[in-house]
């Protein structure tokens, strides 16, 4: 990475310190609360699968039963494994069925019973975490067997709503050069308080995230990885009301990257802020363990706010995501911080402004695999203009050493991508990378010139905003519409009823493994 902006290092340090100060109260809250989805994730990591006749997962049924019986303040593990032991059930599935029929009895065990429940739970979780660890090893084996794609990684979306249409489209994209495939989720999924089951074909503008869909797609891409001699990464969304569970499933099915933002659900799905912050910490602990790269969602702010006016909100949010991410155990190499090429193309010098923003973020986070998003807001029905704008996005991406390029579609203003749109988009980025990939070597912003000035200004604005957030508190700032000019009060939004204050005896065997980095698998985090 070249430094081109002569940023003031003192200001950079101050920005990071402020982010830590603003974030700490949120971490404290997350450490003292749990959520229904976190508890369901514990059960899923222990191997609970399947759903009742209505499609409601057994994980939900069991957590509901325990909630009514004992409350969740001690976590689901203590009462669940206690019931397993004392009730003589053949596994969590049987227990959940019984619980659903109102036939299971739950209590908060104490003394030896508690110790027995804890031990059994730990053993069950060790198996799940072990599978995550094994997947991590297997990912590395697959990479060794095929190859690690060169940077920037080419990231493409499939979004047919039907896993069986998605698969061939994803494979076609990989053959044409995609390094990362993201399967977009159906519009409604983030508001569902459960994870659907099985292979699905009926999503709207995206395909449901299910464990089976994950498995099918990963298997297909393993095949294609071998075919093309390049490891094709699979991405999905650990977001919405089931963020922790989806994170668990991603770890279990060897997904490679996950969209996982500390605030996206709050702002763009009206999910309760507390719920989101608590969930994201647990989800990130799993991602950290699984060697998954997270992708944050700052790009989205620029679809509701103006990309020039709100440039500093992107930086502020990235610093917060970085703080929360590291606190949860993610390494720099797992922090796919998001940003986007969303400046109005009619603005004079718009490309120079984009370069300034992209380079600023590159220099602020030199070791993060930055994820750079293409233009969406200013894409119209003019597919030729769109193709052009996407090319300049690609160019900005290679000139500023972005790590992951989400490839823009010329039809962004019209429909979810057609097969041919994706193919043309890949031709676009291939040309730019091949023809101008080394243009960065000659990209030297004039000292004190337009680009450097702009970067300094955005950094300055970021520090000023962070100071304000420290003063008022992050939840208040979010309520005031700081991000994406969308106001989200701390006590509104969906899912607040799923937030529970931990009791003093709270027990979460998954967290125990994740927080203490216990040696279920010995392999080092790379």
């Amino acid at each position: 990475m070249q430094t081109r902006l002569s940023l003031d290092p003192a200001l950079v340090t101050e920005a990071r310190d402020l982010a830590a100060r603003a974030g700490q109260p949120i971490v404290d809250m997350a450490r003292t609360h749990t959520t229904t989805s976190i508890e369901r994730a514990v059960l899923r990591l222990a191997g609970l699968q399947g759903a009742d006749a209505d499609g409601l997962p057994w994980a939900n049924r069991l957590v509901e039963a325990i909630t009514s019986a004992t409350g969740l303040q001690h976590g689901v593990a203590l009462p669940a494994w206690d019931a397993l032991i004392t009730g003589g059930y053949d596994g969590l599935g049987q227990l959940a069925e019984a619980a659903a029929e109102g036939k299971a009895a739950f209590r908060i065990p104490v003394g030896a019973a508690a110790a027995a429940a804890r031990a059994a739970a730990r053993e069950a979780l060790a198996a799940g975490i072990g599978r995550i660890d094994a997947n991590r090893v297997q990912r590395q084996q697959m990479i060794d067997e095929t190859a690690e794609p060169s940077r920037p990684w080419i990231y493409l979306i499939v979004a047919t709503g039907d896993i069986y249409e998605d698969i061939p489209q994803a494979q076609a994209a990989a053959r044409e050069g995609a390094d990362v495939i993201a399967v977009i989720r159906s519009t409604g999924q983030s508001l569902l308080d459960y994870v659907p089951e099985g292979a699905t074909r009926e999503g709207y503008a995206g395909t449901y995230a299910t464990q089976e869909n994950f498995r099918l797609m990963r298997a297909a891409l393993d095949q294609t990885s071998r075919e093309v001699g390049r490891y094709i990464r699979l991405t999905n969304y650990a977001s919405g009301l089931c963020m922790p569970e989806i994170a668990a499933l991603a770890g279990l099915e060897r997904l490679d990257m996950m969209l996982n933002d500390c605030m996206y659900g709050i702002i763009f799905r009206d999910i309760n802020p507390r719920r989101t912050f608590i969930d994201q910490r647990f989800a990130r602990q799993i991602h950290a363990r699984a060697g998954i790269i997270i992708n944050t969602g700052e790009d989205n702010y620029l679809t509701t706010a103006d990309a020039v006016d709100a440039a500093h909100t992107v930086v502020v949010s990235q610093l917060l995501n970085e703080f929360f991410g590291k606190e949860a155990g993610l390494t720099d190499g797992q922090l796919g911080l998001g940003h986007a090429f969303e400046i109005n193309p009619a603005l004079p010098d718009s490309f120079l402004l984009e370069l300034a923003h992209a380079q600023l973020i590159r220099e602020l986070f030199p070791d993060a695999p930055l994820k750079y998003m293409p233009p969406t807001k200013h894409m119209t029905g003019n597919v030729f203009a769109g193709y052009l704008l996407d090319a300049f996005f690609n160019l900005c991406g290679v000139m500023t050493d972005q790590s992951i390029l989400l490839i823009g579609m010329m039809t962004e203003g019209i429909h979810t991508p057609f097969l041919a749109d994706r193919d043309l988009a890949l031709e676009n980025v291939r040309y730019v990378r091949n023809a101008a990939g080394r243009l960065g070597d000659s990209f030297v912003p004039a000292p004190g010139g337009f680009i450097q000035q702009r970067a300094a200004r955005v950094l300055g604005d970021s520090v000023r905003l962070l100071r304000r957030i420290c003063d008022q508190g992050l939840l208040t700032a979010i309520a005031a519409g700081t991000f994406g000019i969308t106001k989200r009060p701390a006590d509104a939004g969906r899912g607040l009823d799923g937030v529970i204050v931990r009791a003093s005896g709270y027990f979460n065997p998954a967290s125990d493994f994740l927080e203490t980095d216990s040696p279920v698998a010995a392999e080092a985090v790379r």
Partner: protein
Amino acid sequence: MTGQIVRPYGDTTGDGRVQVSFTLPVPFGTATERARAEGAALQLAAKMGLDPAMVVHAKGMGPDYTFFIVYGRVAHLVDLSQVTVTEREFPLLSAAEVNLRIRSALGRKLVVVGACIGTDAHTVGIDAILNVKGHAGEKGLEYYREMRVVNLGSQIAVPELVARATAERADAVLVSQVVTQRDAHLSNARQMAAAFCAAAGPTGHRPLLVVGGPRFDPAAAASLGVDKVFGKGTTPGEVASYLAAAVGRAGAPVEPTTDLAS
């Protein structure tokens, strides 16, 4: 050829030139496959009326699909006299005029309830219409003194919308739909209209139903069971003027109507 009959124009009047692109699920590997694929593309082009047609680009995408770009001449005539332009059936008013019209017709504020329904979370469009900030230099409906605007935001389920509209005694309900894959926008709009219809009961009295979004056909109101459809590029002033005309014509209370020529 009279002025009413026109043809596509490439570089000479009447040359009829058009460009077409599409994908066919046919392979493009061997020479025979390629010839067959191009033949298939030309067959489709012919069915679309291109004669002559020229496949200027063909590219295999994976083993099963081929993308084509075709240029050609169509013989189709466009008869401008047969184009039915749905003229705006209400006058464009200033904010003051809108306010005046509402006050004289209703004697109270007009209540507008807005939402993105279903699982659609695209609020930028409806916010552009409702928020004070507005769109394209025009202030949104919140700015109108004689309107009371309740913006429910996104992802509102239809029953919830009906309940809130009833509770607020809404005169008009404004619904946005941006996601159109699998015609989600159409089915959601129909479902919403049906729910208000059902809620209205025997009197048939329901608020004015307005839907909007970039991929709606403004001529589709009747087929969706709503009173008015706004498409891409709508401005708040147009919506305000429409509402003023709707209340102005019928007097209070607002009666659903699809014919507002004034």
